[in-house]
């Protein structure tokens, strides 16, 4: 409660002083609201925005951090209130979860992005834009991949079925985190479900609980794997815990986020013998997108910023700093970057929609973890 009030207060203050610099003579200040973890804040606040301001000195940026999405509802309410009052909003750019973008769509809160507004948008693969109804601009992505230690795994599995066979042949040497605690575990669970159903049926906007009976064989499969998992069916707490097991060589194979795994390898936190690879059918992944409120008073500046974010220069910053995938198509990236990501930068499966995912998490807990 108090946190929400404090955030509202901070946002109010930012709102008041942030737009203070607007004027014909001075530089234009863009208010950039970013939802994420500290690594994403550093990406924007210490790298992307300073580089942008250096290149386009007519713009200043005011950075607002929404840690793990804290206060997002307030931001949406604020944009909506401004729209209803017929005023401009001081939120010029917002990185948020798709659910908030969806909520604001009927009210026409967002700018539909086109190449006329942002020329570099032509470099973004069309299906990524379609997935957001052209309301979100993907600027970084990641997917879950298979990590394995080549010191112990000589013939890495190439398909999901191969992985399952490997787990059964090497009991105790595979781990995925409790899906309730991290996306890398969710991806393995979802891969098992997608083995038996059409991914597209559960990734779209429709929701029908009756369709979930088709998941039954997946729970059976995962339940059978319990005894072959690390520590006789213990599912670690979170993405990081799995990476630690991998680094201590307690397990030889695991599902991990591509960006976290790459980052750990770069920092020497994983043995050099650990390799990351996408399997077929691929584990899931997604893009982080930024959305432009239609009520922004500085649309021209925001489009300038977004166009720059899609340049190789800015995309290189994203890759270097958070080991993400670029928002633009790989062909626009230098050959060295493509080589670095060659094994993981493959298409990934779609995330199930949030209601199906919630049900999968509950059923996994009941049918897999709870069946021991």
């Amino acid at each position, binding site marked *: 409660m108090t946190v929400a009030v404090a955030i509202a207060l901070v946002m109010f203050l930012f709102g008041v002083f942030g737009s203070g610099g607007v004027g014909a003579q001075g530089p234009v200040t863009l208010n950039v609201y970013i939802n994420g973890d500290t690594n994403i804040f550093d990406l924007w606040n210490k790298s992307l925005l300073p580089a942008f301001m250096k290149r386009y000195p007519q713009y200043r940026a005011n950075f607002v951090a929404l840690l793990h999405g804290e206060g997002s509802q307030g931001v949406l309410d604020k944009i909506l209130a401004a729209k209803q009052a017929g005023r401009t909003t001081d939120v010029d750019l917002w990185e948020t979860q798709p659910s908030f973008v969806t909520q604001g769509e009927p009210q026409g809160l967002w700018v539909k992005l086109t190449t006329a507004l942002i020329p570099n948008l032509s470099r973004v693969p069309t299906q990524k834009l379609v997935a957001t109804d052209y309301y979100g601009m993907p600027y970084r992505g990641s997917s879950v991949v298979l990590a394995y230690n080549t010191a112990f795994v000589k013939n890495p599995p190439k398909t999901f079925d191969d992985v399952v066979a490997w787990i059964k042949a090497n009991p105790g040497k595979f781990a995925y985190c409790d899906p309730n605690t991290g996306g890398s575990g969710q991806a393995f669970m979802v891969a098992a479900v997608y083995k038996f159903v059409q991914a597209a049926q559960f990734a779209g906007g429709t929701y029908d609980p009756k369709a979930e009976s088709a998941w039954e064989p997946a729970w059976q499969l995962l339940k059978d794997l319990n005894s072959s998992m690390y520590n006789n069916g213990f599912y670690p*707490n979170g993405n990081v815990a799995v990476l630690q097991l991998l680094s*201590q060589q307690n397990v030889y194979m695991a599902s991990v986020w591509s960006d976290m795994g790459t980052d750990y390898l770069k920092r020497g936190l994983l043995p050099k013998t650990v390799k990351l690879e996408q399997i077929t059918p691929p584990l899931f992944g997604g893009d982080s997108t930024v959305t432009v409120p239609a009520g922004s008073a500085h649309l021209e500046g925001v489009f300038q910023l977004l166009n720059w974010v899609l340049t190789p220069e800015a995309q290189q910053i994203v890759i270097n700093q958070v080991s993400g995938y670029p928002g633009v198509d790989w062909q626009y990236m230098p050959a060295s970057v493509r080589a670095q990501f060659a094994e993981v930068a493959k298409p990934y499966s779609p995330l199930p929609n949030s209601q199906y995912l*919630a*049900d999968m998490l509950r059923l996994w*807990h009941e049918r897999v973890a*709870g069946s021991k």
Partner: protein
Amino acid sequence: MDRAHRGWKQGALGLALVLPPLLVLVFLIVVPAISAIVTTLTPPGGSGPTTSFVNYAEVLATRMLRADIGFTVTVTLVSVAVVFLLSYPLALYLRFTRTRATAILGVLFIVPLFVPVVIASFAMITFLVNHGLVSTILYRLGFERFPRLVYNATGIVITQVWVNIPFAVLILGAGLQAIDDSLVDAARDVGAGSLRTFFSVILPLNITSTMITLTLQFIGIFGSFTIPYLVGGNAPQMLGVTMTDYLTQYLRRTESATLAVIAFMIAAVVGVIYVLSVSRRERGERVVR
């Protein structure tokens, strides 16, 4: 007249002082609790003002949730028992022995009270995990196989005990301070041994503190979240974690509220014992006066 006026003024002042906590109680606890209970009594689909226990039947029909409820009660009872068995001797020692060691111990035992629960939990994890200190010592002592100490009920109990001992010792100790030395000496004089003295003199005189300790510990551990979340396993889980998962992960508000009401009713039974033991003390005091 003047006196009546002053009385009224004092009453108003008293009311003004009580009002803020009372409002907080009503608007942040009573009202949400009632609305939650109403939610749990509304059948899914929510057609009309019918009342039914269908949500409760559904929750209790889920094997996983029954397991979680049983697990929570068991872990709580075991934790309370261990805390009690360890803290009573400590409280007695601190009360009836006066040496330099007692003084140092009296400061040391209270340390966990100042360690945030999150830090205590992570400390316990590093201490108890596969390659942790405890495992290494056991292994060096020649134990090749021993039960897992963390990410299960054992881990939760160990951490709860570590965190809860200071509070138990403080309350038990406060009660023991009130016991007249002469009563203990008298028991010794007529030939009672240590155990006899404890069960016939000290425990009956300290029964209120004992009951308060037991009931408050039960409710605190029963409703805990951080320790079971960090130190517990995948399944079964304690209700604090289960309720959070149902609310935030599985997007099932009604089930979460239903579990909360069930948890509340279990805690309420213990709460009644607490109220009875406290009010008995107050009646007892009045008799003495």
